């Protein structure tokens, strides 16, 4: 079943188009969304998830966002929240379990344990009770990854999971991505480092306000399409 299919999706900020008539289907496995700054990569993720207003239609596993909500996970950009918020790493990851436990009362112990398990998967078991403001940038990124894992989703949408992280965090995140793929989960990630695309991802979407190319990395990740996406000069 196709994890995502997008038909005629457009986004306008004020009168300026950010994305124009996107038609795209994500295949199972690991997919990178690449393109220059301002190409609309994050906007595409948010539009598909209904976080910014858009025209067109997005289907997840053939159904609407509302119906597929429990099968989706999301990892936003780290800078999208205030890390001085009074919470521990475990508190943040535990928020992912609210979707199934409901919004009344205390979080059941089993749900909190599931959150703790997700933290151990990203190597942060010992830092579970540390305030998030005291974590390094890479550790904060792993907390967000753990929160996405705790959603136990079939499809994860990630916004620059590897941006500005230390080497240890990068290794952890790539390991987790590969484990997810092996377990039959799909990941669609906005990615900025062209060099590592073929090592990590199986599919790519080259984006610059519109779809430049999409498909298996071996076929679509070519000097010609990269030049089309970024303009001449980068493809060499």
């Amino acid at each position, binding site marked *: 079943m196709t994890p995502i299919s997008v038909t005629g999706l457009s986004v306008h900020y004020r009168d300026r188009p950010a994305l124009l008539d996107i038609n795209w289907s994500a295949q199972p496995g690991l997919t990178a969304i690449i393109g220059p700054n301002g190409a609309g990569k994050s906007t595409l993720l948010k539009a598909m998830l209904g976080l910014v207003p858009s025209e067109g239609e997005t289907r997840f596993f053939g159904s609407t966002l509302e119906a597929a909500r429990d099968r989706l996970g*999301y990892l*936003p950009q780290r800078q*999208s929240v205030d890390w001085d918020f*009074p*919470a521990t790493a475990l508190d943040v990851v535990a928020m992912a379990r*609210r979707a199934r436990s409901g919004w009344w009362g205390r979080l059941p112990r089993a749900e909190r344990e599931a959150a703790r398990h997700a933290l151990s998967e990203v190597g942060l078991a010992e830092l579970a009770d540390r305030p998030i403001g005291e974590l390094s940038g890479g550790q904060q990124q792993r907390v967000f990854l753990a929160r996405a894992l705790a959603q136990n989703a079939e499809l994860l949408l990630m916004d620059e999971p590897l941006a500005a992280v230390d080497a240890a965090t990068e290794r952890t995140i790539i390991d987790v991505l590969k484990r997810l793929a092996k377990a039959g989960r799909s990941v669609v990630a906005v990615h900025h480092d062209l060099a590592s695309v073929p090592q990590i991802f199986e599919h790519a979407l080259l984006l610059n306000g519109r779809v430049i190319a999409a498909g298996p990395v071996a076929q679509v990740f070519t000097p010609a399409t990269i030049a089309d996406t970024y303009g001449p000069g980068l493809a060499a």
Partner: protein
Amino acid sequence: MIGHNTIVVVLGCAALGIAAGAVGCFALLRGRALLADAMGHAALPGVVLAAMLGAALGWDTRSLPPLLLGGALAGLAGLWCVQRLTATGRIRQDAAIALVLASFYAAGVVGLSIAQAWPAASQAGLSRFILGQAAAMRAEDAWAAGALAALCLVTTLALFPRLAALCFDPEFAQLSGLNIRATDHALLGLVLMVCVAGLPAVGLVLVVALLVLPAATARLLTARLPSMFALSCVAGGAAGTLGALISAGHAGWPTGAAVVLTGTCLFTAAMLARRG
């Protein structure tokens, strides 16, 4: 000598402080302090209009509930204006808040001087709503304010997980199935209720401090939300109680100022404790 009326008023102020501490936690984390200030100031013309309407209809203008209802409606109108102004995209929220706060307050002050010249309306003692005068509260007023405060506290506790998710990461919460708009409106409603409940005792000029000071004090002392919430309630309750007692002891001191200065002392102590 502390009379029955004073005890009831002090208890009312304590309940108000606890509720302000509870709601203030989330108002602070969501960055709503200035909006609270605007709503507090915007309430004045509503209170004045309610008193004039009451006088025209021959009601007891000293009765608190109609005045507070008028204040709440005007506060809502102020909030609506801020949102309409920012929706234009030409005026940023800080400017919209300043504009609404000043305009509504100015309208309230003019209304006040009109109402003052009208004996039936002037009996409402409207000027006490500006700086707060707990000593002028009757026992039933304190009960009304206390009941409103208790309602705020219970609602905040019930919505705790929702409010926490909203304040930390609204987009993620929305994807988890939380109705962000409704939760945000509920938080603004709670802030408005605290502002309105605080009008007679603390006054509209200073009621925002009652929302901010306990929460900021608690935030200095802890890095977890449940303990911040508890500490904020305690600090708010302490400021309300002590401020009301001090104001009652020195009858000339406006209660709002006494409550806020007590809260400021607690905040300063927390700052020093953090350094030490």
